[in-house]
């Protein structure tokens, strides 16, 4: 007989309590995923997956340990595992900060509670459908003049369910769907090739752009990289194009993580309440968007998710804490996090930003970034388009860009070209002086 996951978690927590745990949380998830890849018009791979996972965390006083195992679903093995978790916890040294979120702050949620957010599309396309769309997206890329080869097109569909219970009575049931479509195209030949790609994902299949559109964009990006030259080493204005501008902002999100701040390893740890960006810069997060790519009712610790402003008029407003880091920093856990995040657009479009800067580099690809989280020193391999007299001149590659992020943040000017494509989005960002290493 198949026992409902929620009941199995309930039994697991009860077993942990009986064995001596003062508090416990248990989690299970399962999903069905289908992925189809085609290459040069022919089926390449078809995959079907049924992942499943179980985990248990127990506290004995201020000591804790966790176990993850497939065997929790087997009742005869479960008690031995629970015993092992308790043994580990009793041996662990005390951690005064770790624990469940306060019971009066969490909110239990059900699949019905989530329904208004519309995060589950029950459509389950067959592998043959996915194969057809994958073929279409690849064909559109191959049709772009200059595209000579393909990594292939891929279409995926997944449906997942998650359950989380705690010994305080929190019950969280959640389900999600996800559909994605992508392709990578190769341009050039005779020993000089470039690759680029484009892809989109969404909880609702109908919200994905047309396959032809995605494929054409991938092909265009690959062809635009051809004919690239190296640059002489220089210092110049750099615009990070909107497709990768989040790469500059993601380290900001790590630096305001409560855990990093608490252990002293963030380059922004002393900047709470200070102006880190220029006046007028605003970054918001909103978990309540209907069909939002990362929307949620509660965070992973059961705290209600709310919209908030991370950067207000350039000012760093707060840390992203979990229960443990909030306690360590003397703060109340607030459930704020990164879900559907946006940097508000500025006044000028990309062409105007280039005209303003006059001469400089438009970065369209970054790879191999390195960051020193203590200092904010950052660099990455790059390629893009050198612009002169306000307009594109020629493509460049095999260069690096480098600088110190607090300095970038203070100077950056967002363009007006914000587009919502991923869960985190920012417009193109102009920074007036960046070190570029080349020949």
């Amino acid at each position, binding site marked *: 007989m198949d026992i409902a996951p929620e009941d199995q978690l309930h039994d697991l927590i009860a077993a942990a309590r009986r064995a001596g745990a003062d508090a416990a949380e248990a989690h299970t998830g399962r999903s069905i995923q289908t992925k189809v890849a085609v290459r040069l018009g022919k089926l390449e791979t078809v995959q*079907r997956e049924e992942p499943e996972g179980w985990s248990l965390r127990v506290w004995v006083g201020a000591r804790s*340990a966790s176990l993850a195992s497939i065997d929790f679903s087997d009742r005869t093995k479960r008690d031995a595992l629970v015993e092992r978790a308790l043994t580990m916890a009793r041996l662990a040294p005390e*951690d005064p900060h770790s624990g469940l979120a306060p019971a009066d702050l969490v909110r239990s949620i059900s699949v019905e509670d989530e329904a208004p957010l519309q995060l589950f599309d029950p459509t389950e396309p067959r592998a043959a459908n996915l194969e057809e769309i994958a073929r279409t997206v690849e064909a559109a890329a191959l049709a772009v003049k200059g595209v000579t080869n393909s990594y292939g097109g891929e279409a995926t569909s997944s449906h997942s369910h998650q359950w989380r219970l705690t010994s305080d009575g929190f019950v969280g049931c959640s389900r999600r769907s996800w559909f994605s479509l992508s392709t990578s195209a*190769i341009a050039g030949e005779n020993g000089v*090739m470039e690759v680029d790609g484009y892809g989109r994902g969404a909880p609702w299949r109908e919200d994905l752009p047309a396959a032809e559109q995605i494929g054409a964009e991938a092909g265009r990006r690959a062809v635009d990289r051809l004919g690239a030259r190296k640059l002489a080493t220089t210092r110049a204005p750099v615009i990070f194009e909107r497709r990768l501008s989040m790469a500059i902002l993601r380290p900001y999100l790590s630096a305001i993580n409560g855990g990093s701040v608490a252990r002293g390893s963030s380059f922004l740890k002393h900047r709470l309440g200070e102006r880190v960006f220029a006046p007028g810069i605003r970054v918001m997060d909103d978990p309540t968007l209907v069909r939002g790519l990362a929307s949620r009712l509660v965070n992973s610790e059961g705290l209600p998710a709310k919209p908030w402003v991370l950067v207000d008029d350039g000012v760093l407003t707060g840390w992203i804490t979990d229960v443990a880091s909030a306690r360590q920093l003397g703060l109340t856990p607030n459930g704020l996090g990164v879900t559907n995040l946006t940097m508000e657009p500025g006044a000028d479009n990309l062409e105007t930003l280039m005209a303003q800067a006059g001469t400089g580099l438009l970065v369209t690809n970054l790879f191999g970034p390195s960051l020193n989280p203590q200092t904010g020193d950052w660099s990455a391999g790059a390629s893009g388009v050198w612009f002169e007299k306000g307009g594109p001149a020629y493509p460049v590659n095999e260069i690096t860009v480098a600088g110190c992020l607090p300095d970038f943040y203070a100077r950056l000017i967002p363009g007006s070209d914000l587009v919502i494509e991923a869960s985190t989005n920012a417009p193109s960002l102009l920074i007036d002086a960046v070190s570029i290493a080349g020949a």
Partner: protein
Amino acid sequence: MSAAPNLLSAISLLEQRGVDARRVHARLADALAGADDGEIYAERTETEWLQFDDGRLKDADRSATEGFGLRVVAGEVVGYAHAARIDEAAINRAAASAAQARAGYHGVAAEPPRRTNAQLYPDVDPNADPAFADKISLLQAIDAYARDLDPSVVQVSASLTSEYKIVEIVRGDGAAIHDVRPLVRLSIQVTSEKDGRRDTGLVGAGGRASFGEWIAPEAWRAQVDEALRIARVRLKARPCPAGEMDVVIGPGWNGVLLHEAVGHGLEGDFNRKGSSAFSGRIGQRVAAPGVTVFDDGSIHQRRGSLTVDDEGTPTERSILIEDGILVSYMHDRLSARLMGAAPKGNGRRQSFAHMPMPRMTNTGMLGGDVERQEMIASTKRGLYCASLGGGQVDITSGKFVFECTEAYLIEDGKITVPVKGATLIGNGPSALTRATMIGNDFSFDPGIGNCGKNSQTVPVGVGQPSLKLAGLTVGGTELG
């Protein structure tokens, strides 16, 4: 070699789960009828991870996962289905899904992998030793020693990871191949503070055996000393000048340069599709004379080693570049069959939940005869890179990029000041043609490498002698 044999690993995983062997073999043979290749890959992995950070034990986690993947290969098409439980119903569903790959295809089953009696690592469960309580004491001792070492130490992080993996591969003819793989790693990070600035040093070590030698007090104390040394050098470092210069790269872990600059570009899947900058270049010069690059999964107890790969092929040393000439790619069974080559143990997968593909094992360059000191003395103005961090490569354009975690300027043939923020960028097919000097000091990395490709991570080893590369672009924040 092992102490007492581990009885659990001697019994088939499928049998342990009550799966009827004859019925499963019949079902698999059915799914593979007319296909070129395929198998059931069953796996059980037990892992233990303890993380001590900011003066306390932040994570103590034990995990056990198991499952299987069923693969059907027909021509260039692969059908794959996997599940996180091993039972007949799941196997039957998987066989039905994966067999879609061979719709309308008629092939002949490929040669099975050859058998081996090699054993590259002991059949020990590294999770069991040291005992949980002793692991905690060890981490506490490391933390205390590091904080006591110097008043500038403001933060310490130490972790112990151990893994025990049982692999069982069942082929269409009913043959079964087993492997039992231990893997351990100790990792230590020390943060030092001076004049209000902080920086870190990260070290680690491990391999395919029990913790043993890597957690002896002399060993871990030397690691902590080294982590602090690196942190203090980085605190003194000045911003690196940017521009093209000669670079001398130290031995060992810096072999990650080869892994990115040429390794990925020589993987068989990219080359059979013509998407690598090295495609179609077998027989051509891709490196300077004297440069010989190998991949070898058959080295005892190294992190990147495997007795058999994840398709059941025994590992061996393969020469990829010989005296500067490209001679071979690395293959899984699929790319080997399609390119008319022999697979040598490079078919790897992260877990049962992933399809295998060509991956590296332990990749390195053979040593030459030049002293490192000579390389530095011969450099008028350049960079000495003692340690690289991580790197990344675009195998189609051939461009690779690295950060240097510990680097110094070379001025008039002498190492002068430490520099920070040095990034190397180059082009794989040409960077090694400018290897002007090859050192006599080959070593492997201490057992800390992870390689990511197509969202799959596998443990790897790298190694090289000191190397001088002429005219590499060095990124930095200073100009001139």
